[in-house]
C-alpha cells in the first residue's frame, strides 16, 4: 500500500505539473484541441488513480473537471468565460497538489472539495445552457436514487419510501409527524431530504417522495404505520439501486450472462460473483486488484468478462457483476477476501445452472446481454489453454526507455562509488608498494586504467542524480502569473540556462528560496507601471532566472530590471533597527545590500500578501547556507538587483579543514570557518579566555578542553586559532596544528557509538581519508551552542 501511495503521489504530481504547464501556456493563447484532450486525459487519469486509492474527494473533483472538458472537447464552438474557467482550473490544480501533501501526512483529514466542485459544475451547467438548453433542464432536475445511499451505510439500516398524494398540504409537517410516530417501533437514523424544517424540502418530497432511514425489528409494522399516515399514497421499502445483497440471491440465476460457464469445466472449479456498487469508478481496475489479491489463497483460472483491460468490460461488471473462476481449498476465505474489496457490495458463490434449468433462465436476460454470447467462446478457450493461474492484468508489455528509481537506492550507489574511489587510491598508493623491489610497470598501467574507470563511474553515478534546474524554474511561472494578477505589474519571466543539470537534492532545496527571491523581485524590485513611466523606462518589466556552473558550484541568479536598491536607505533602515555592526562609512556596497538578508529587515512600507513581513530573506539565506551554499546580493539604483545563489555541486561531499588536537584527527567544515590565524600574546585577554581580533572580542576555547582530551598546557601562541561563525555565533578555537585541506564523505557513527550521544556533543560523523586514516567531523554549531549554554549558566 505504501509503495502504491508513493507511485500515486509521484504520478499525480507530475500530471499536475503537466497540467500547470498547459494552463500557463494557453492562458493567453488559443486553447488547441490537443491541449483540451491533454487536460481531459490528465483529469481522467487522476480520477481513476484517485478512485483506486480510495481518495474519493480527489477523484470526484477531477471528475467534475473532466466533465467540463468533455463538453469543450465534444463541441469546440461552445462559448465560455475563459479567465473564469482558468481561475477554476488553477484552483483545482492547487487543491489537488495540496491534497497530495495531506494524504502523505496521516494526521490530516482529507479535504472536502464540495464547494469547488459545485463551482465547476455550475460553470459546466452554464456552458451547457448556452450550447444545448434542453440538456441543462433535465440535468438540473435529475434525481439520483443512489445519492440517498451513503457508501458506509450499515446493512441493518432499512430505507422506506413514502409518497404523498399530490394535493397534500405541508408535506414537511406530515413527514415530521410520520417520523415521530415511528418512534415506538423503530429507530429513525435520518431522512431524505435531510432537513424537514426547510420549506424547500416540501417540493422535493412531493416530487421524489420522502425517504426514511431506520433500524427496526419489524419492517411490516413500520410500513403499516407509514401506510396509515394522513395523505400517504404509498409506503414501500427501497434498496440500494445496485444489485443489493438482499435480492441478489433471487436474481442471481437469472442474471448470469451466457458464457460465464462452459461445458467442460472441472468439478472443483468454483465461480464467485462479485457485485460492485453503482458509484464504483473503474470497475475493471477494482476487478484486477481483487483477482490479484486472491493470489495467496486461491488459484484463479479466469474471469468473466474475460478481458479486464478492455474498457467495455466495466459496464458489464457493473451490470451483471464480475465472475471469477477459481480453485481453492477454502471457499469462505475467498469470499471474505473479496467482500473486503473497495466498493464491493457482495461476493457470493454461484452454481452452474442445471442444463435443464438454463433455457428457462436464459430468456429472461437473452435480450440484454447479446454481446457476451459472442464472446462466450473466448473464456472457454482460454481456460483450456491455461489451467495454471492466469493473471488477466499481466498484459502490460509496453516498453519504456525511462524508469523511476527510489532516491535511496541512488544514494546507496553514490556512497558505494565514493568508497570505491577512496579504496582505489588506498590500493594504488599503498605504502607496501615501496618495499616491492621488482618491476611495477604492469601494476602501474593497470592502476591507471582502474583510475580512469572509477572516475568515469563516479561521473555517471553523479549524472544519474542530475535533473535540469528547469524543474524548479517552471514552478516560478505560476508564482509570477499569480502576482501579475494581483499586483498588475505585467512582469515577464525569462529563463536562461534552465537546462543546467544539478543534483536532485539541490533542486528540492532551491524551491523555497527561489520562490522568496522571485516574489521579492516582483513585489519590491519591479516598480508599478506608473513609476516606470515616470522614470522613463520603456523596456518591459522583466525578471530573469539564470543557471550555470562556476568552478564546482551551481550558480543560480535572479535578476530584475526594476528600481534597484538604495544603499543609503538600507543603511538608514539598518541604523533604525540597530543591526549595523560597524560605522556606516565602512560598509561596502555589497555589505550594505546584504543587510536585507539580516533578520527583521524589510524596507517595504506596506506588507502585502507576498512579502514585507521581515522574515523571508534571512530565512532564505539560512536555508541556502545550511547546505553549504551562499547567497549574494548586487544592485544598481535605478537599474535593478541581482540575487545570486551558489551551491556546491554535490552535497554528500563536503570541504573540511583537518586539524590535529593532541593526536586526535578532527575535521572542521570549511563553511563555518571565517579565518585561521596564529595568536600573538597581545591578543589574549582575561586568562586566555578571550581574544581580540579585527576589533571583535571573542571567546577562546582550547579544542582539547572542549573534548576533554589531554594537551592542556601548550602555549596558545604556538598552535593555530580557528575563528568560526555558526549561524551568527562566533567563537575562536585553538588547535595544535593544521593537517590538510580536504574533501570528505561524511558517514554517521555506527549505532554502537552513537548510543554515547556523540552527535549531541558536536561530533557529526567519521570519514575515511584518501590515505586510509579516519577523521572525525565536528559540528561547530552544536559545539558553540553547547559552550554558550554552559557559559550562560
Amino acid at each position, binding site marked *: 500500500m505504501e509503495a502504491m501511495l508513493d507511485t500515486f503521489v509521484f504520478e499525480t504530481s507530475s500530471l499536475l505539473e503537466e497540467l500547470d504547464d498547459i494552463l500557463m501556456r494557453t492562458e493567453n493563447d488559443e486553447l488547441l484541441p490537443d491541449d483540451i484532450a491533454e487536460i481531459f486525459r490528465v483529469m481522467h487519469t487522476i480520477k481513476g488513480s484517485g478512485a483506486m486509492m480510495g481518495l474519493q474527494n480527489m477523484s470526484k473533483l477531477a471528475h467534475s473537471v473532466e466533465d467540463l472538458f468533455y463538453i469543450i472537447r465534444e463541441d469546440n464552438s461552445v462559448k465560455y468565460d475563459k479567465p473564469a474557467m482558468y481561475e477554476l482550473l488553477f484552483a483545482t490544480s492547487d487543491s489537488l497538489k495540496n491534497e497530495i501533501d495531506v494524504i502523505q501526512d496521516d494526521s490530516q483529514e482529507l479535504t472536502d472539495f464540495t464547494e469547488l466542485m459545485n463551482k465547476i459544475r455550475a460553470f459546466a451547467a452554464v456552458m451547457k445552457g448556452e450550447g444545448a438548453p434542453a440538456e441543462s433542464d433535465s440535468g438540473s432536475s435529475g434525481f439520483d436514487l443512489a445519492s440517498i445511499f451513503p457508501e458506509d451505510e450499515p446493512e441493518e439500516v432499512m430505507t422506506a419510501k413514502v409518497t404523498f398524494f399530490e394535493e397534500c398540504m405541508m408535506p414537511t409537517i406530515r413527514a415530521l409527524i410520520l417520523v415521530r410516530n415511528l418512534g415506538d417501533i423503530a429507530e429513525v437514523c435520518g431522512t431524505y431530504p435531510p432537513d424537514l424544517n426547510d420549506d424547500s424540502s416540501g417540493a422535493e418530497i412531493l416530487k421524489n417522495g420522502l425517504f426514511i432511514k431506520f433500524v427496526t425489528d419489524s419492517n411490516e409494522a413500520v410500513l403499516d404505520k407509514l401506510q396509515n399516515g394522513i395523505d400517504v399514497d404509498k409506503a414501500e421499502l427501497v434498496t440500494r439501486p445496485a444489485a443489493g445483497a438482499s435480492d441478489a440471491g433471487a436474481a442471481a440465476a437469472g442474471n448470469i450472462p451466457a458464457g460465464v460457464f462452459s461445458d467442460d469445466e472441472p468439478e472443483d472449479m468454483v465461480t464467485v460473483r462479485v457485485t460492485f456498487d453503482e458509484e464504483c469508478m473503474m470497475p475493471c481496475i477494482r476487478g484486477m486488484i481483487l483477482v490479484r489479491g486472491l493470489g495467496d489463497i486461491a488459484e484463479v483460472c479466469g474471469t468473466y468478462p474475460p478481458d479486464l483491460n478492455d474498457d467495455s468490460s466495466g459496464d458489464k461488471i457493473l451490470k451483471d457483476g464480475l465472475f471469477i473462476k477459481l480453485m481453492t481449498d477454502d471457499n469462505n476465505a475467498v469470499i471474505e477476501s473479496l467482500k473486503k474489496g473497495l466498493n464491493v457490495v457482495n461476493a457470493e458463490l454461484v452454481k452452474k445452472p442445471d442444463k435443464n434449468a438454463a433455457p428457462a433462465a436464459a430468456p429472461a436476460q437473452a435480450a440484454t446481454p447479446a454481446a457476451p454470447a459472442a464472446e462466450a467462446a473466448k473464456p472457454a478457450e482460454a481456460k483450456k489453454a491455461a489451467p495454471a493461474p492466469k493473471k488477466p492484468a499481466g498484459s502490460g508489455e509496453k516498453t519504456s526507455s525511462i524508469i523511476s528509481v527510489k532516491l535511496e537506492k541512488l544514494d546507496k550507489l553514490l556512497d558505494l562509488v565514493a568508497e570505491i574511489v*577512496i*579504496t582505489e587510491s*588506498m590500493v594504488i598508493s599503498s605504502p607496501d608498494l615501496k618495499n616491492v623491489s621488482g618491476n611495477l610497470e604492469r601494476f602501474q598501467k593497470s592502476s591507471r586504467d582502474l583510475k580512469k574507470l572509477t572516475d568515469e563511474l563516479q561521473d555517471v553515478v553523479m549524472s544519474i542524480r542530475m535533473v535540469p534546474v528547469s524543474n524548479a524554474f517552471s514552478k516560478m511561472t505560476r508564482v509570477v502569473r499569480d502576482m501579475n494578477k494581483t499586483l498588475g505589474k505585467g512582469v515577464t519571466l525569462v529563463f536562461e540556462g534552465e537546462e543546467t543539470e544539478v543534483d536532485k537534492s539541490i533542486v528540492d532545496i532551491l524551491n523555497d528560496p527561489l520562490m522568496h527571491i522571485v516574489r521579492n523581485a516582483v513585489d519590491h524590485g519591479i516598480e508599478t507601471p506608473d513609476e516606470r513611466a515616470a522614470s522613463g523606462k520603456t523596456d518591459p518589466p522583466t525578471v530573469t532566472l539564470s543557471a550555470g556552473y562556476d568552478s564546482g558550484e551551481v550558480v543560480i541568479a535572479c535578476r530584475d530590471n526594476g528600481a534597484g536598491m538604495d544603499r543609503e536607505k538600507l543603511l538608514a533602515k539598518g541604523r533604525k533597527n540597530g543591526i549595523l555592526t560597524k560605522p556606516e562609512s565602512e560598509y561596502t556596497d555589497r555589505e550594505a545590500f546584504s543587510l536585507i538578508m539580516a533578520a527583521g529587515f524589510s524596507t517595504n512600507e506596506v506588507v502585502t500578501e507576498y512579502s514585507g513581513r521581515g522574515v523571508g530573506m534571512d530565512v532564505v539565506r539560512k536555508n541556502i547556507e545550511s547546505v553549504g551554499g551562499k547567497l549574494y546580493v548586487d544592485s544598481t539604483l535605478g537599474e535593478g538587483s541581482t540575487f545570486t545563489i551558489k551551491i556546491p555541486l554535490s552535497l554528500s561531499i563536503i570541504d573540511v579543514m583537518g586539524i590535529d588536537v593532541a593526536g586526535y584527527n578532527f575535521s572542521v567544515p570549511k563553511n563555518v570557518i571565517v579565518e585561521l590565524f596564529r595568536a600573538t600574546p597581545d591578543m589574549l585577554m582575561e586568562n586566555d579566555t578571550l581574544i581580540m581580533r579585527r576589533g571583535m572580542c571573542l571567546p577562546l576555547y582550547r579544542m582539547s578542553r572542549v573534548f*576533554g582530551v589531554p594537551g592542556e598546557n601548550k602555549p596558545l601562541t604556538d598552535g593555530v586559532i580557528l575563528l568560526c561563525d555558526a549561524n551568527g555565533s562566533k567563537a575562536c578555537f585553538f588547535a595544535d596544528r593544521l593537517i590538510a585541506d580536504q574533501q570528505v564523505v561524511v558517514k554517521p557513527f555506527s*549505532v*554502537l*557509538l552513537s*548510543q554515547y550521544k*556523540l552527535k549531541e556533543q558536536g561530533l557529526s560523523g567519521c570519514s575515511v581519508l584518501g590515505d586510509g586514516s*579516519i577523521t572525525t567531523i565536528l559540528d561547530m554549531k552544536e559545539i558553540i551552542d553547547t559552550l554558550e549554554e554552559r557559559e550562560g549558566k
Partner: protein
Amino acid sequence: MSEENKELLDDLSGQIMTFTCSGETYAFDIMDITDIIEIPEITKIPKLPEFLLGVINLRGQVVPVMDFNLKMGKPKEEYDSKTCIIVTERDKASIGILVNRVLDVEKVTKKDIIPYPKKGSFIRGIIERDGSRTALIDWNELVGLEKK
C-alpha cells in the same frame, strides 16, 4: 538443564573460538565472528567510555573497537604481536573486540555448556573441560545493544 536454558543456547553453531584475557579463558560462538585481524592504526574519538578505543578502517568501513580487558574491568595489558582484533557483525553493524591472544577453535555440544545463572551478564555459560574453565560470551550483552 531447564527448558529456558535450552532455548537460550539453541542458536549455537557447535563451534567456539577461545581466547585468553588476564589469564582466564573466554570463547565466542564462531558464527558471531566475521574476521580476525592484526591491530591497525586506531583513530581515537573523544567522549567515549575508556574501553572503547576508537575506530579502525576495515576495508573502507569505519568499525569501532573495544578493549576486552577494559570492558571486563581488568587492568589494561600492553599490546604485543599476538594481540589481535576479533570482528563481529550484528544487524549490519560491525564491532572489533581487541583480545590478548586467540587460542583455538573447539567443538562443543549443548550438553557441554553449564548455563550461567546470572541474568544480564556477558557470559552465557561455562564449559568445563580437563579441569579448565571457558566462559562463553553473550555478544549482545557485551556490546550493550538493546535486544530487539
